């Protein structure tokens, strides 16, 4: 606040000084000051992105690249305009230049702009290609969103998430896990509590929602994807530093959207194992609810394990 006010004040004082000293030039000076003020703000701002905690540093790099390319065009166009206003003020004894078209100049600018656009697009698409192509061995975690909190499901020792179905969802089986899929028995359920993940292990999130759109967003991870009821969406990332990070819902989801927060903790291996050992599996939960018979029956039918 103080910085912003100080910056505005300094610019205002310079502007008023110029306006008094050169009243004819105040407009172009003001335009130039807007540009210089913007540049100053950009380099002095304390509001900048938070330290990254995932492998998506390339996203930050493409933002910086875009900043340089587009920022220079912005400054060049606006300062050129400011110069024109300075230089070509109205004089009733003078006539403006008469040149309806200049195809050389127009084509030159077209090609220049096209090159600039390609320079932005190509690196962007290369990173996007990585983003939509999760590594085969990524550890799968299911995130289940509902108004207005987060649930998580981790595969057990088999590394496979059990199948689930919307119709199975009831108050005991909040994830709708298929009772006759043995892979689901050792799944670890975390309902309304913090998620822990292992540092340096790639994670592919399977995103689900049971009511409206949500979006699993952790500013430090940079990545985002909407969660859509009726389908599973995904994205992947690799956490690269330990810490506790806040999860924010980034797709408007109703009155308490702003309060739909959670926590994810990136742990070293020892801490992670300790946390993991304290969690309950789906199978344990079912037996504690007295549904073990059903489960066993289902397993017998399938004839596995």
């Amino acid at each position, binding site marked *: 606040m103080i910085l*912003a006010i100080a910056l505005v004040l300094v610019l205002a004082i310079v502007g008023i000084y110029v306006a008094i000293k050169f009243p004819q030039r105040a*407009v172009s000076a*003001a335009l130039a000051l807007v540009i210089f003020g913007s540049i100053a*703000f950009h380099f002095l*701002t*304390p*509001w*900048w*992105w*938070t330290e990254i905690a995932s492998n998506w540093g390339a996203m930050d790099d*493409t*933002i910086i690249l*875009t900043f340089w390319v*587009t920022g220079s*065009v*912005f400054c060049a*166009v*606006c300062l*050129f*305009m400011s110069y*024109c*206003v300075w230089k*070509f003020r*109205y*004089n009733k004894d*003078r*006539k*403006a*230049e*008469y040149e*309806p*078209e200049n195809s050389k100049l*127009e084509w030159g600018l*077209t090609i220049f*702009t096209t090159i600039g*656009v390609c320079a932005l*697009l190509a690196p*962007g698409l290369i*990173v*996007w*290609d990585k983003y*939509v192509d999760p590594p085969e061995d990524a550890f799968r975690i299911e995130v289940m969103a509902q108004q207005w909190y987060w649930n998580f499901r981790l595969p057990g020792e088999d590394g496979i998430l059990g199948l689930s179905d919307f119709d199975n969802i009831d108050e005991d089986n909040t994830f709708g896990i298929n009772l006759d899929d043995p892979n689901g028995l050792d799944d670890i359920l975390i309902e309304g509590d913090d998620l822990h993940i292992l540092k340096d292990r790639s994670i592919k999130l399977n995103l689900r929602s049971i*009511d*409206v*759109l949500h979006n699993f*967003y*952790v*500013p430090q991870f940079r990545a*985002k994807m909407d969660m*859509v*009821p*009726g389908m599973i969406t995904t994205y992947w990332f690799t956490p690269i530093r330990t810490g*506790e990070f806040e999860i924010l819902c*980034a797709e*408007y989801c*109703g*009155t*308490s*959207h*702003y309060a739909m927060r959670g926590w994810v903790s990136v742990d070293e291996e020892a801490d992670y194992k300790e946390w993991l050992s304290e969690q309950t599996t789906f199978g344990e939960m079912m037996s504690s609810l007295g549904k073990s018979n059903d489960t066993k029956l289902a397993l017998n039918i399938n004839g596995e394990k």
Partner: protein
Amino acid sequence: MSADSYEDVASGKNDIIPALEVPPQDLYHAKSFLTRWIFSQDAKIIGIQYALVAVSVGLVALVLSWMMRLQLAFPELVPFLGPAQYYQFVTMHGMIMVVYLLTALFLGGFGNYLIPLMVGARDMVFPYLNMVSFWTYLLAVLVLVASFFVPGGPTGAGWTLYPPQAITSGTPGGDGLGIVLMLVSLSIFVIGFTMGGLNYVITILQARTRGMTLMRMPLTIWGIFTATVLALFAFPALIVSCIMMTLDSLLGTSFFMPAIIEFGEQSEHSGGSPILFQHLFWFFGHPEVYIVALPAFGIVSDLISVHARKNIFGYRMMVWAIVIIGALSFVVWAHHMYVSGMNPWFGFFFATTTLIIAVPTALKVYNWVITLWRGNIRLTIPMLFSLAFIVTFVNGGITGLFLGNVIVDVPLSDTYFVVAHFHMVMGIAPVLVIFGAIYHWFPLITGRFLHEGMGKFHFWVTFLGSYLIYFPMHYLGFVGVPRRYYEMYESPFMTTSTVSLNQFITIAAITVGLTQIVFLYNIITSAKFGKKANRNPWEACSLEWQTADVPPTHGNFGAELPIVYRWAYDFSVPGAKDDYIPQNVAPSEVPGAKVEKT
């Protein structure tokens, strides 16, 4: 053309007048006060009616934005504002500003006033339909406003109205009348717009005066024309999605509704696709951006040219850029949906198309500033607003290159970066053009100038103030602050507290908003007591300034329609006595003028 010898020009041999293609139409002559001013069929009156309604409802949206800004910066000042009201205000602010203010003002307001005058027609081709269009628009506005007074209040679904939340009980107005009235109001708006839009397109294509070829039309008309064509193609997607969502909400169909659990109970819906709605919405929504932007592009081209006393640079390229932008705007819609869960391979396609659209847009910007080069620039208030438009538009345009590039969009989408971007590019930039246009055409509409001192005050506070609102707001997005948050709290990801910046933005927003009172006061007093304007006070070339009476009366051009001999940009032609030659001046009247383009 420049090869014509002096004698040929002076003899009038080159004053070619094309034959009359369409016979003159019979005008409806109003007989009473009611039919002249209220149920008017005169496009000029209808344009003013559109503008008054649009501005009135826009002021409501402005006050709503103050409430939101106060909640974000000084929540203790608005204790009555809960999350439900906050989201309702967000929604109504957005929808009013985009559809009911900007679209209606540019096309209904400026379109109606300027199209017949600038193409040299006596009126729109369907004056009665034009009147019905306005009253349908007014009905849409009234239905929208009525939703403030129904139980549960207006919808708080966000202006994008994404299902399922838009019609479920977790959203304010979602299970009541709020959302239904919004959908009905939008449908009525589309119906009203279609009547007006067909009128604008057909008038431009069929009722141009003799000699007014398409490539002689002022860019204002090209902008409005292309925007109207876009709207006629885009609005059907909106109206069908509104009808389908109304059915989902009232009859329990499942166009957009999958099976969901609404507070513990399975809903009766199943099998619908929320993403289908987003495709339909943005198939309308992205062209909508250009429906607002293209008329602004056109108008600002004319303002710059007139007040710089120089022809618009690269007219043909400007026309084709408008048309190409319009066409491309139909194949970029899913850049609003990069993280919606649609097939991620679409990202490649839509990022490419989106960045391609930057090329014709950038060319327009270059041509505006090149027009200033070696011009003879009058720093009138319309010119000031045009310069400010270029700064804000370029700023907002380049942030579009961030968001259009799919991978850069991932960290920035749904943050304040997006909010800052679209306010800069389709909020502030077009509004600055609207202000410039009002200062420019006010002498035509009323015969008087707006007060210069008040105008300058209004300009500087509006331009610098709104820049101070939205420029720093981008950095909130870099921090990662999500949009549509009623309350942010201090979260550890914010390495610097955002409270002070939010307070600064709110103070700037309220200042800019209050300054509009000066503008309104200026309009009201100047209409009655302003400095009298001569005929064609800005010495412009286009036809609307060449009418027999100022302000133009019913039928626009007196006994005879003007005949057009040249484009609308013959400024500072070498050899001519004045620094402008109006479109209806025959070559024989300006011998010696070395015209290169007609």
